[in-house]
């Protein structure tokens, strides 16, 4: 069971996970990561833009790679775009598998790629000013773990 989409409005991760788990009967484990907008120093809002012709197809390609690499029964990826406030979810990735290692590693893999190899651009509003978020060296290092 594959559920991949962009969310243009606030979503509640808890409402996704129950149906996702139900949709994969016989699973041994399900791992879920939810990322939220942090209450960082003076952050008033966060905006994620994307490029429609690349973003969702890129998420589907990422799902293909996760299914090829791990022994998965189901994969859910929901990523917010648009304007968000601190405390709101940005991303929810959930993987169902017979064995825990596959589903935990698949979530880890998808998050590292969504973070630094998917077509999203993030900016934060602090003190009324928007600031683009640059990719971090740590993100590139996280991604490199899956190569070779």
């Amino acid at each position, binding site marked *: 069971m594959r559920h991949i989409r962009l969310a243009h409005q606030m979503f509640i991760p808890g409402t996704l996970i129950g149906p996702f788990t139900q949709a994969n009967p016989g699973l041994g484990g399900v791992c879920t990561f939810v990322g939220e907008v942090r209450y960082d120093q003076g952050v008033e809002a966060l905006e994620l833009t994307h490029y429609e*012709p690349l973003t969702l197809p890129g998420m589907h390609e990422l799902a293909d790679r996760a299914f090829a690499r791990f022994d998965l029964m189901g994969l859910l990826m929901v990523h917010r775009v648009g304007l968000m406030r601190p405390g709101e979810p940005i991303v929810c990735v959930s993987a169902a598998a017979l064995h825990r290692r596959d589903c935990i590693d698949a979530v880890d893999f998808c998050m590292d790629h969504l973070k630094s190899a998917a077509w999203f651009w993030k900016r934060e509003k602090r003190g009324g000013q928007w600031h683009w978020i640059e990719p971090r060296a740590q993100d590139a290092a996280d991604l490199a773990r899956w190569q070779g």
Partner: protein
Amino acid sequence: MATIVLLGKLADLADAPSIALPLPRSAGLDWEGLKAALPTPLAEALDDPRVRVAVNGALLPDKMKLQANAGDEIALLPPVSGG
């Protein structure tokens, strides 16, 4: 006319999310032609090797080999920061 779509901070450099570039129906647009047609700060930012280019939703393996025509959508994609 070709449409230039500007993502992330590149949109700030042009003060707009997209630019309509006049382009005769018969004429093509290459990489140098594109840069010459854009505001200087934006054109300079494109030299960053991390900036990728897509034409009509297809990523170019080598942006320097851009070949676009009237009616095309050219997306300029700076380094991403998602999740």
